[in-house]
């Protein structure tokens, strides 16, 4: 660990003395309020992740009071060590009171990495829910003993190098613990697109046109393929369509898929990837009488909503999802919920993957 990384993490402490040291931290300054509504753990096997995650947590604590527990793992290291740091992230509430959240960071190396689960559990605030943000692929460290005790798992499947294995581990976890809430940031990135689609279908003409849909076109960044496919799976599931027997994926990176409506008619779905695109830059639905297009230009933080039908046109803007990881997690935590829709469309999504 470099000096600057050390600095970012606060005061180094003995693992055995963490609670005592945290207590001292609060005693030192009475003007601060210690606030916490959850335990928020962040796990990463990437080098240098602790300082980066400390910065992310600082942003998240502006909206979500928590006890943060950062875990950085270095499996390759020969030496077996466990180091810990504590600090507090403070923000002014209404320009007066300083509201602070405590953070404990752990760095585990070599064979100590196996202790990470107990390290987290030993430092939780009792009775508050545990949210774990697992960065990178799910590995063998993601064990039953871990996910049985967490309330909410945050992942980002777009970052996975080996998605098939990770999705498999994820499905197993769901199988073992039905109440586990999984929040995939690839799904979070589609939130405002979904909201825009829903808003446009409030228009009676659009709603009437749904059964006559012929084609769906999506343009996305190849890094965000899963967001695009989640969006497709979501749309088709809620429209009541099933993947068709002659579902085709031409092997090319770009994907074409086919869904079957209740009346047996087919709908073609075309997903194009473009390196210059925003995570999703276009979602277009073409039917007999109505065209719906939601799009996002490069660098824009707004979505363009367009609905064209024979009698009228609707042309507005709405919020787009952030491209910043900290902000995405913040928004996702604010929305809460059981994320049951994601779970429901997951099998359809896996078919597309």
């Amino acid at each position, binding site marked *: 660990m470099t000096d600057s990384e050390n600095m970012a993490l606060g005061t180094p402490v003995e693992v055995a003395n963490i609670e005592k040291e945290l207590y001292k931290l609060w005693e030192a300054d009475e003007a601060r309020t210690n606030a916490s509504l959850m335990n928020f753990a962040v796990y990463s096997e990437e080098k240098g992740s602790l300082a980066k995650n400390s910065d992310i947590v600082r942003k998240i604590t502006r909206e979500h009071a928590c006890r943060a527990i950062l875990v950085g793992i270095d499996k390759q290291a020969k030496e077996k060590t466990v180091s810990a740091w504590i600090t507090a992230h403070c923000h002014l509430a*209404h320009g007066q009171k300083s509201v602070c959240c405590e953070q404990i960071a752990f760095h585990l190396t070599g064979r100590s990495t196996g202790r990470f689960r107990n390290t987290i559990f030993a430092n939780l605030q009792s009775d508050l829910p545990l949210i774990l943000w697992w960065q990178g692929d799910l590995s063998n460290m993601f064990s039953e003993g871990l996910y049985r005790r967490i309330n909410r798992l945050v992942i980002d499947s777009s970052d996975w190098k080996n998605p098939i294995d990770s999705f498999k581990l994820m499905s197993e976890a769901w199988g073992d613990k039905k109440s586990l809430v999984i929040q995939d940031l690839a799904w979070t990135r589609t939130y405002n697109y979904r*909201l825009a689609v*829903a*808003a446009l279908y*409030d228009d*009676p003409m659009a709603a009437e046109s749904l059964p006559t849909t012929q084609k769906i076109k999506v343009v996305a960044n190849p890094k965000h393929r899963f967001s695009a496919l989640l969006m497709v799976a979501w749309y088709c599931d809620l*429209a009541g369509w099933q993947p068709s027997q002659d579902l085709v994926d031409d092997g090319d990176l770009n994907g074409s898929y086919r869904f079957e409506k209740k009346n047996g008619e087919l709908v073609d779905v075309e997903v194009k990837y473009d390196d210059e695109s925003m995570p999703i830059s276009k979602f277009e639905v073409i039917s007999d009488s109505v065209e719906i297009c939601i799009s996002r230009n490069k660098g824009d933080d707004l979505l363009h909503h367009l609905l064209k039908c024979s009698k*009228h046109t609707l042309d*507005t803007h709405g919020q787009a999802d952030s491209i910043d990881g900290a902000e995405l997690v913040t928004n996702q935590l604010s929305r809460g919920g059981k994320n049951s829709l994601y779970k429901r469309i997951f099998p359809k999504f896996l078919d597309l993957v």
Partner: protein
Amino acid sequence: MSNPFREDLVSRSRPESCTVVIFGATGDLTHRKLIPALYNLAIDGELPSNVKIVGFARRDKSDEVFREGLKELNKDVSRSGHNDEIWNDFEQTVHYHQSEFQDLDGYKRLADRLDAIDTERGSKGNRLFYIASAPEFFDDILQNLKDAGLNNAAKGAWARVIVEKPFGTDLATAQHLNQVVNNTFEEKDTYRIDHYLGKETAQNIMVLRFANAIFEPLWNSRYIEQIQITCSEHLGMEGGRGGYYDTAGAMRDMVQNHLLQLLSLVAMEPPTDLSADGVRDEKVKVIRSLRQWDTPELVAENVVRAQYTAGHIHGKSVVGYCEEDRVDPESNTEAYVAVRCMVDTWRWSGVPFYVRMGKRLPKKATEISVHFKSAPNVLFNAIPGASDEGNVLVIRIQPDEGISLRMVSKLPGTSLRLEPVKMDFHYSTSFGKGSPEAYERLLLDSMAGDATLFARRDEVEEAWKFVDHIEQAWHAEENQPPMAEFTAGSWGPEEAEDLLAKDGNTWRRL
């Protein structure tokens, strides 16, 4: 045709696209509250697409000039800031319609205009009429809406009306108004706004009571000694408010609506379901069960009214009520009121509810405090010098929304000293993000047809009935209960302290 894509995106009834017509659209309420609320809903993606807004007022203005004025104020007051690009889209949905409230022709032109809007955007013709005018125009507006046929919705669509406070000035005027409203709109399409009900903590009263198993068993006369509802304001009659206030007074302006609504949320029985009528059925039973103070003697015994005299607030000297701008120097209107209410139900038998509201009190706060009975006078409470204060649960409605619980704890040390300590929960610091403005929630609910957070006809009339007895005693030819006085910047008159002292209680210090 239902919209399948709304599933799981919002956990509330779905607001439907409509045209919102605001009567009194060049006024303060529209600029400060209504338009910023609609704009913030648009930013959050909560406003149904295709909503149009038509402002109706007397002055001659173009759409552009109207929009420009709204934009200037939105920049100052919008909860989540102002984004030009989103505003530019939003303002395209805003139009201005010039007419006198009394001019039927203006309403006919409005009807044509609304039809044209519906044709242009292919919508089915839902209309939400928001009456944001002074109450003397309610009759004209409602009658003209009816004469122009605007109260009749097209097939498959709805026409609803939102009425602002004050909803009448006594039972007779409220009944008249209800009749006028219900001549034009059915009760199910009538939404009487009480913006206190749109506040996060007010909504949370029911959640606190009925979603937590630990409170409800204690929520009765067996464990609760008394309940206090305080609404204190440090402001006086700034900005010309005196003109209106002096005709109303604290009782009509705040107690009849907001504070009795809070009281009914605290005292109601669990509703059978969360439907609008399920909840309101229970709330109205509380108001109906209020013991009536219907003789001058009972009023004198249970109600204190007062005016402030010159004093100091936040280090500045301020004048007395009767010297305020636009207030009659001989005024007989109360700027402070404290009422001892008794809810005659099995649950609340013998538990006083003290409700007070005052201007020029030391700070701005609205809070409900539930005072539990003290633990028996044995063990720790029998120790000489032990405090016999019971637990107090405080629900703060504004400004610092939250909940706290006071309990007794041992002071550290070798001797046994007990002192009260406070467990505190603040919305702002715990949830970080700000709560939506009350008007945002209420506008969405009315678009969704959910009237839970609006006052129903019988609630309003029952509340007036209670208030009328008191007002009548105050304004009777003889035997009038006295008008007390207190120094501006203090916590109210001595008489209000005596009111509680008779029961062996004291006002909670805020």
